[in-house]
């Protein structure tokens, strides 16, 4: 049947294919094999998807860690983080003068602007921001996508534990830095060499 059709297609061909119609049989075999396998469809609304732990669903806020350093708000490329705070004096008994500390009044993220770059999470020096795989927070009104610190804090419960370190991956920066510091005697030997290299581009200019 259709094998003849292919032969007519390959008529005058170089004969690089072996048996005429082998491609047609292969196509049939592929579809039949796929039919016997389980389908890859995820029944989403019925069955929750299994998202990888580093999924960028929503940004959660751990309020106790925030020191109102404003780094996240300043680094945010589309300025979707709004932070207000005031200073509070904490009288410590026995201290010479009261301490000052920042108190967070407002921490809003406007998810209608957020582009999920994750720079705020990366830049936060006190681990106050986390990625959560939670993604079901669509709203009917775009204004409702502005979430305050209480709402962001609720998402902390959905933040998964960090994935285990990949044994075959390169070691964490902290570990290598610590190892380098531990090997102090080797470091001064390296250091003089660095300035010797640096002048070269300056000399060229």
């Amino acid at each position, binding site marked *: *049947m*259709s094998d*003849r*059709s292919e032969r*007519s*297609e390959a008529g005058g061909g170089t004969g690089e294919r072996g048996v005429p119609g082998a491609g*047609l049989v292969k*196509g*049939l075999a*592929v*579809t*039949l094999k*796929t*039919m016997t*396998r389980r*389908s*890859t*469809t995820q*029944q989403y609304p019925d069955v929750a998807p299994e998202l990888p732990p580093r999924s960028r669903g929503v940004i959660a806020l751990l309020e106790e860690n925030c020191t109102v350093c404003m780094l996240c708000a300043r680094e945010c490329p589309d300025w979707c983080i709004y932070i207000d705070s005031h200073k509070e004096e904490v009288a410590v008994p026995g201290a010479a003068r009261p301490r000052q500390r920042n108190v967070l009044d407002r921490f809003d993220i406007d998810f209608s602007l957020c582009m999920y770059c994750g720079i705020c999470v990366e830049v936060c020096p006190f681990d106050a921001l986390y990625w959560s795989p939670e993604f079901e927070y669509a709203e009917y009104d775009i204004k409702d996508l502005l979430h305050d610190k209480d709402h962001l804090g609720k998402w902390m419960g959905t933040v998964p534990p960090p994935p285990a370190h990949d044994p075959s991956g390169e070691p964490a920066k902290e570990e290598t830095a610590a190892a380098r510091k531990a090997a102090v005697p080797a470091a001064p030997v390296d250091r003089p060499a660095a300035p010797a290299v640096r002048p070269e581009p300056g000399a060229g200019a």
Partner: protein
Amino acid sequence: MPLWLELVIRVGGVLVAFLTLPLLVGQAEHKVMAHMQGRLGPMYAGAFHGWAQLIADGVKFVQKEDVTPAEADRAVFRLAPAVALVPYLLVLLVIPLGPGDLVGQPLDIGLFFVLAVVGVGVVAVLMSAWASANKYSLLGGLRGAAQLLGYELPLVLAAASVAMAAGTLSLPGIVEAWQPWWLLWQAPAMVIFFVAGLAEIRRPPFDMPIADSELVFGYLTEYTGLRFAFFLLAEYVGIVVIAALTTVLFLGGWHGPFADAQLGWLWTLLKVFAVSFLVIWLRVAFPRLREDQLQRLCWLVLVPAALAQLVLTAAVRVAL
């Protein structure tokens, strides 16, 4: 049993087959195609694996607006779906389900009748294409006409071969005369008949007249609602008809491994469903043939092969 009662039972039986078998095939296509593509297909309608999907589709089609384009030839436009559907209903009337009297209407020239009536399909295509007053419809319709007229020839020649072998034009007679070794003897005719049949009902990979990626939806472009549903139903009845004809002519109809007299209808239905599965399978596996490839396959491959099969059949028949 009075004549009118027998008539009512036979016609009622054919009508039931006409309304249920295409739905079964359509549902099978939904699910088989989905799983062949690594999907699940309909899952919600009817709660269990979407078994009621086609019923839901039917309800939806009934609710839709029935649009007739302003420029269309109204009468012809409205009549075309019926012309597409009725021939297949008539064909089902003469296809034997089992031995003895298990057939809607035993007809001595059954094969002739079947081929003549299936040929009416081209009229429906041309009617819908021309009456739509739409360039896509017209292009699709002309492609359809060329394809249907072309493939009519190998279809008839292949059927003629088996009729020569059996020495009768009656479909029950052909099944009666059928013997297992005919599977080998009539194998080329079977393949030709099946391929030409696929082209006759415009199933992928022979769906050039519809070709939704280039012609919107061919001659069906302007149809909506129930009339569109009728065309779709005609396609699925077409699958049943072609599968049934292939079964009856080439696969031995009600001949089965055992108990032909009692379970003949079961063997026939099983074979029909097996061939229908093949039709669906081919649709999933193969891309659409280009128009020139389509005509080339028909005139340069199928027609000569069918003629050669006729010669072979005649030779074996004379030699026996």
